[in-house]
């Protein structure tokens, strides 16, 4: 939470390194496993919906105990996408996943798979597989039997199942543990078996229910990279559920932020982080500075805003808010700087606290209007001189750093 930028820079760079190192080999491997993917042979990525939820409501219980786990949720998940449902526990993300898997059925609305309504199909009739939070490996079967279970249930011939199991074991790098019982392997290995088991039947969509939450930090980082690699190699649509914003930012193509049974915002990690549309999204992902500002004027969707300090800036106004007299804006700590000498500050205040984090330093500034504002600065050798708490300081940020929230 503290060092988002540093934390997600690392695994991503490793992923891209690997991709660039042997893209052809990986593609060939994927093609032998799953056949060339349609979107690739088509020459460009098609933004077709793999999974679609249409006005889905799910209620549990009756009468006064009735709880709405999902309240009129609509979302489109594209083909070949790594799509993440992100939110705190109880926000409905797992419920939505279970509706897609077929363990539960929507109270209202429908779930579509490749345009076909599957709302009332049982799980065993849906070309969708799940990686469970607890892995749910069959304890009485070997690793290989677990992985082959889905294909066996589909009635595939023995030889084909055996071959697919070997391919899967190679894909998750577990060849040597083939005949172990699942109780005899470590948590990280169980995780890989669970993945292989769900991937073996070549599902259209792979659902992952907080699959990394039981792993320790180091293993979790490894598995994040591993998952991304698997998604690249298999070209299967991944729907990933997590409450860990860092995980979501590093792995996803797109993220849906959920809260209290609603989807608040859907977008790429960058959009979600840089352009949060709601207070909840801004707060849930990363650190934020929230400020009430006055709206001076609005024209063509651009607003002139005035800070309490008197400084003015321009920002995009969310739709339907042109009447607002005051709005809340977000400025990310790393998008602002302490003003050097000669800069014209946007805000000014007194430096209250300086926290050194190694890679960066956080400056907590008490603004003159009383609000605490955090500025994060990357540490560089031979950089600016150390600031002392108690000093007066100005804060600068560009217009681009200001994001207006829809309230």
């Amino acid at each position: 939470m503290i060092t988002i930028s540093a934390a997600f820079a690392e695994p991503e760079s490793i992923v891209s390194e690997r991709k660039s190192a042997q893209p052809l080999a990986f593609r060939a491997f994927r093609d032998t496993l799953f056949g060339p993917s349609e979107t690739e042979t088509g020459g460009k990525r098609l933004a077709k919906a793999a999974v679609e939820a249409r006005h889905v409501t799910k209620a549990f219980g009756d009468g006064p105990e009735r709880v709405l786990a999902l309240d009129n949720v609509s979302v489109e998940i594209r083909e070949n996408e790594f799509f993440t449902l992100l939110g705190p526990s109880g926000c409905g993300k797992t419920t939505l996943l279970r509706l897609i898997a077929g363990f539960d059925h929507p109270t209202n609305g429908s779930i579509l798979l490749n345009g076909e309504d599957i709302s009332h199909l049982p799980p065993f009739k849906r070309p969708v597989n799940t990686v469970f939070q607890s892995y749910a490996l069959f304890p009485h079967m070997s690793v290989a039997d677990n992985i082959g279970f889905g294909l066996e249930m589909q009635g595939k011939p023995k030889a084909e199942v055996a071959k697919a199991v070997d391919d899967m074991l190679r894909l998750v790098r577990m060849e040597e543990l083939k005949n172990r019982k699942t109780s005899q392997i470590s948590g990280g290995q169980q995780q890989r078996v669970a993945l292989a088991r769900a991937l073996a039947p070549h599902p259209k969509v792979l659902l992952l229910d907080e699959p990394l939450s039981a792993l320790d930090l180091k293993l979790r980082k490894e598995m994040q990279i591993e998952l991304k690699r698997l998604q690249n190699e298999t070209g299967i649509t991944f729907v990933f559920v997590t409450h860990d914003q860092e995980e979501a930012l590093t792995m996803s193509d797109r993220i849906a932020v959920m809260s209290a049974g609603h989807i608040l915002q859907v977008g790429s990690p960058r959009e979600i982080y840089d352009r949060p549309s709601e207070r909840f999204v801004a707060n849930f992902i990363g650190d934020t500075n929230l400020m009430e500002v006055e709206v001076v004027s609005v024209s063509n969707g651009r607003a002139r805003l005035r800070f309490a300090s008197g400084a003015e800036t321009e920002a995009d106004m969310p739709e339907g808010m042109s009447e607002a007299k005051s709005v809340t804006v977000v400025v990310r700590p790393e998008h602002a700087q302490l003003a050097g000498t000669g800069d014209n500050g946007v805000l000014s205040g007194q430096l209250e606290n300086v926290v050194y984090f190694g890679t960066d330093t956080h400056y907590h500034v008490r603004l003159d209007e009383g609000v605490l504002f955090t500025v994060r600065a990357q540490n560089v050798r031979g950089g600016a001189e150390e600031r002392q708490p108690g000093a007066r300081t100005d804060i600068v940020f560009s217009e681009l750093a200001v994001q207006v929230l829809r309230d």
Partner: protein
Amino acid sequence: MAEADAQTTGHTSTGRADGRAAALPNLTRRDEVRRKWLLVAPALVVLALAASGPLLIVLVYSFLTPGNYGGVVWEFSGEAWFKVVFHRDIFDDTLGFADAHLSIFWRSVKLSFLTTVLAFIFGFPTAYFIATRPEKYRGLWLFLITIPFWTNLLIRTFAIMEVIRADGVINQILLGLGVIEQPIQMLATDFAILLGMTYVYLPLMVLPLYASMEKLDFRLVEAAYDLYATRFQALKRVIIPTVKPGIIAGSILVFVPSLGAYVTPRVLGGGKHLMLGNLIELQFGQGRNWPLGAALSITLLLIVMVALLTYIRTTGNSEGGHG
């Protein structure tokens, strides 16, 4: 942050280990062994006095000569063991198999096996039903299962008799509806014994089945469905293998007492359809042949042991035996 976490947990765990080591006095191996024996001693004493002792007496009696008015004469004889299987004609001394005994053995094994199967067929869905109820209602359902234990076995058996006898409830209803013209003879048949024993021993199947099903992780079942298993396949490939310890325990708890059942076959079998328990009782009572009764008892014991060993051999070797 993670490093800090690792360090703290590292500290606590070492601290705990130290604490435990300090709490235990330094025991030598001999002390430890003595301690273990002292702990199991009470159970061993009870077992020796109440199980092994009487068993030994029964074994010795089976090799003695029957007394004229019951009891035994202290004179060695293999006659009782001979009579368990063979029959000597009283007029011409020709040897033959003791058909009566063998058919009773066979009936006992057959009815006990069928009782076990029926108890499983009825007990499995029941246990599954209870295990899938919300937790707060499970206690109530289990309580209902145990209610029959509150009434004496004899009374429950007579109650069944009332239901199935010629002018009993079932026949009265069927006659009244005009479904049948003559009452169906149910009492004093194998069917009656089977019905009674299934009823009596059903809870002994349900309880261990429930115990293992309650521990069943239903996410495994969801995982099976997710991997294209139909409901039947999920049952066969996931549920049954995982609850196998419960199935084994339940089957043993039903099969073993069924084999030695006495009251149920006596009341519902009407004295014509004997089972091993009745045959043994006969030898100690009217038959006045205690050694034969003793030999039959030991035979029963052997049948049970052989059956159990075969059962455990065949089920234990396949997947999930150790559950």
